[in-house]
């Protein structure tokens, strides 16, 4: 039965309780932890030892791609059919700067949005935690800590007990 479990979910009243519980869980040796909160909690990631996100890198890549595309496009069209426009130079870099800047921003922003969703595995309409009975509060005013069933130290009963001691308002096992 445990193999089809997603994990154990514990509900806390406020971020402070959640953080405390999370700390305890780490000390207790749980590693595969995740938290679900109505808004981002400062420092929770450090407690859970989550890796630094790499959205910035994606954004930078997007920016470079955008700038490159824009410049290449503008230079190419003027190379392909060079026309004397008001005596201005064929490769009027100063004039091309504008569109280049715009595309830099555009590509970068889109890259980051897509990158964020991609890395988060979104869209993901159907997800185990949604089965949890109390989970609807996670987007309202409750703060949930989840010990994933894949965690080496996970044992349904023990884990639940542990979480309850950690000050949870409610705990439940989330089916996978």
């Amino acid at each position, binding site marked *: 039965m445990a193999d089809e479990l997603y994990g154990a979910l514990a509900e806390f009243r406020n971020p402070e309780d959640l953080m405390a519980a999370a700390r305890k869980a780490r000390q207790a040796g749980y590693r595969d932890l995740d938290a679900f909160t109505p808004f981002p909690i400062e420092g929770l990631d450090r407690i859970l030892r989550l890796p630094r996100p790499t959205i910035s890198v994606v954004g930078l890549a997007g920016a470079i791609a955008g700038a490159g595309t824009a410049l290449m496009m503008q230079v190419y069209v003027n190379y392909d059919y060079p026309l*004397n426009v008001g*005596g201005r*130079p064929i490769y009027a870099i100063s004039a091309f700067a504008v569109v280049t800047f715009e595309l830099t921003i555009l590509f970068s922003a889109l890259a980051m949005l897509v990158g964020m969703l991609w890395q988060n595995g979104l869209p993901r309409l159907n997800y185990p935690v949604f089965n949890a009975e109390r989970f609807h509060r996670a987007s309202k005013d409750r703060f949930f800590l989840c010990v994933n069933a894949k965690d080496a130290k996970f044992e349904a009963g023990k884990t639940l007990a542990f979480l309850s001691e950690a000050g949870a308002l409610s705990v439940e096992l989330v089916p996978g």
Partner: protein
Amino acid sequence: MRRRTGPQARPAGGQTLWAGIEELSDDPRFQAYIEAEYPAVQQFSRTARREFLKLMGASFALAGLTGCEKSSFVGALPYVDQPASETIGLPRYYATAVLLDGYAQPVIATTHAGRPTKLDGNPAHPTTQGRSDVFLQSAVLQLYDPDRAAAPSRHGDPVSWADVEVAVGTLREGWRADQGEGVRLLLGPSTSPTLQRQIDAFLKQFPKARVHLHAPAGLDKRRQIMAAVYGQAMEQHLVLGECDVIVSLDDDFLGPGPDQLRNALGWSQSRRRSSDRPGNQLFMAESVPSATGALAGQRLIADARRMPALAEALANALGVAGASRPEVTDAEGRWIARAAAACKGRPGRSLIASGLSGGGAAALWVAKINQQLGNVGQTLKLTAPISGPAGAGTLAELVSDINAGRVHSLVVFDCNPAYSAPGELDVRDAIKRVRSSVHLGLQRDETGALCEWQLPLAHALESWSDAYAVDGTATILQPVIAPFDNVKTQHQILAMLLGDINPAADVAVRETWQASFGDAFEAHWKQALHDGFVEGAAPFITASPVSSTIAPPNTAGDLDIVFRPDPTVWDGQFANVGWLQELPKPLTTVTWSNVIAVSPTLAKRIMAVNGDHVEVTVGERRVSGPLWIMPGQADNTVALYLGYGRTRAGRVGNSLGYDAYHVQPGTEPWLTQGSLRKLGTTEDLPVTQLHHRMEGFDLAREVKPGQVEPSSPEQASLYPAWTSSRNAWGMVIDLDSCIGCNACVAACTAENNVPVVGPEQVKAGREMHWLRIARYYTGDIAAPRSFFQPVPCMHCEDAPCEMGCPVHATTHSPEGVNQMVYNRCIGTRTCSSYCPYKVRRFNFFDYRLPADSSEHAAHNPDVTVRSRGVMEKCTYCTQRIEAAHVAADKENRPLRDGEVITACQQACPTRAIVFGDINDPGSEVSRLKRDGRHYVLLEELGTRPRTTYLARWRDEEKGSGQG
């Protein structure tokens, strides 16, 4: 048919002139061919289709800008038997002439597949030397006027020529009975020897018949004056080319009229004699500002009634016998003193001229002065009258005869007395009284509608006829297109009256010239047709004033009312020609209407502004029209312009403006007295230029002699130097020569298919002329200096417009032409917003002609017809440039200077516009760009225009504004 190339007669692109015409457009071979290019034709109404087919020539593309729609397969029809001489898609050129007040205006007609599309002056002609005026340029549109009478009619019901012949037959019976007693011919001005010959024959047949002349534009008056002064009928010719000093008393010799081309040429020649000072001095005393006055270095503002006095004062100052010293104002005195001083000591190098408002009194003194100064035979030449008919009575006499019941038959030849006669004569009423009346005219106009019979005349371009130019050089008119309606020439109809039923069109004319050409007739005939004129002007005669003094017209009443023919519709005969209606009047820039012009002071006195309706009362008669404040007009003179208020001109010309003829007196038609009052109403006039003060900018410049320093055409730029190709086109416009006559604008309109947008769009500020003549005032509004400045596209090398276009629709050619590609344009109008000269024009609506309108035929097939939503502008007549390139490239040679001539340049009567290759240091345009008077409009903007200007001379004498 024989192809000859008169080397002297070679306008742009080495055209080949065609002698004689075996025309094509009436040929079924043609009619079929048309549909190839006009799928639309099929959908036309039957009549429209007939009209259209008759107009359209063989295979040419009447380019319409249809965008990049899916190209479809259309029908194509070959000839059944192609004329040997015809090369499909190439224009052919014929020499002939169009008429203004009966005088020949020699033209080269460009025909595309049998349709005349463009008229230009005949460069070989001794008098006009290829120059044209607005009427000449627009005649081609008049030819295609859909409102022309298409068939003879009786009381308005169409009849056949057969019916006419029968009727004429019976008429002749009646006439013969009492030798033509009570038969009258009323003719418009005509110089045709053939017509004269036929009239003489007519008078021989009907000795008691009489001939009368109706010349609404004043030709008859001029003739009376000459007769009064010299005791015999004669015509005078100003030789302005030989003058150092010209003094004009209200004679607008540079203004519109049959003489304009010759005078403009002569004036500009003498004006340009030297490169470091104006070649002549022009003194002008005038009541109403005119082109001549605008150019006068010494301009005196005087009421029309002052002219005789001024003439006598000048005569007195120059010591003419019998001239006493009349009362003159200080200003007048100063002006006369200066004019006299300038004339003295220049025997035969000065010229005094006087206009109609001066009447015989002024003319007599002027004649005496000219004689005193030895100008007669030098700068003033006299000939026997060139314009006929000889010995004709006046319209007034005719009317009194009719009213006295002495007239039962009246034949009106190509004139419109019911509209254009002085209202006082009440001609309409008179015509109604005549038992049988016949009207010959292009249209069933006001007179045609009154007459029993209306017989449609062929247009000059459809006719065999002949006429003299102002100098008496004859031109044989040949049809350049077969009549496409059921019309006949005057000669054919006169022949009919003479009993020769339905003769061929050219018989009478050939007969006339048989005499002078003699045996080698055919050779002479063809030569004459090819050249477009017959060598030999009228011989000069000498004469001296006979009468000792002529009493000036009595001038009771406080306001002088003077009448002027309209500068664009003349006496009203061109009222239905859209091109002319849309031309801005030179000094007011008003279009589509005439105005009542008054001085700023007078306007202030009656508290009226431009557009307010005012009423002019002359005796019992009154007329009301929009007021126009004319800076520099004499305070107590009101100017009325003839030619408007027509009721049967056609769809274009009806009910525009007011009818000034209505208040014109019968006896003294050109200067009378009356009163002016303001009415409550006002109207928004269709004006193309709203602001006329130069506001202290140096847009149209002047230089004093001695101020000039040679200029370098080089202009600095931050942008990279673009390698130019072999030719680099440029233009120079000489402001000193520009007389503001609009010929360039009309020519541009004809050449480039510039649409007519109508008064409402002009009011909205959307006129489409690619070339506008800016008109500026400087100085005191009461006595300003006036400037004309033609402003086409400047073709800037660093063009702001080009960098504004997001789709490469306007770019620069290696030859320096600022290109506008209509079919690429999406209409952002950025180019126009960025253009510092605002020379671009936009198709705010679809201004194209309706698909079935006959005026299509006047389109130039080498120029795209622009659709809605695209920008357009002057292209330096690129179609001509490219045609020249093709011609040169086929011969594998470089272009020659003068091989490309723009339409405006070709038309300009004073050769003020010069176009050419600025890479060729020897070219005329390069020479002018090095001239001392050369300057660049808005040079400070660094746009480096290719179109530049020569500043206007300013005479050394000061106070030239006030005189």
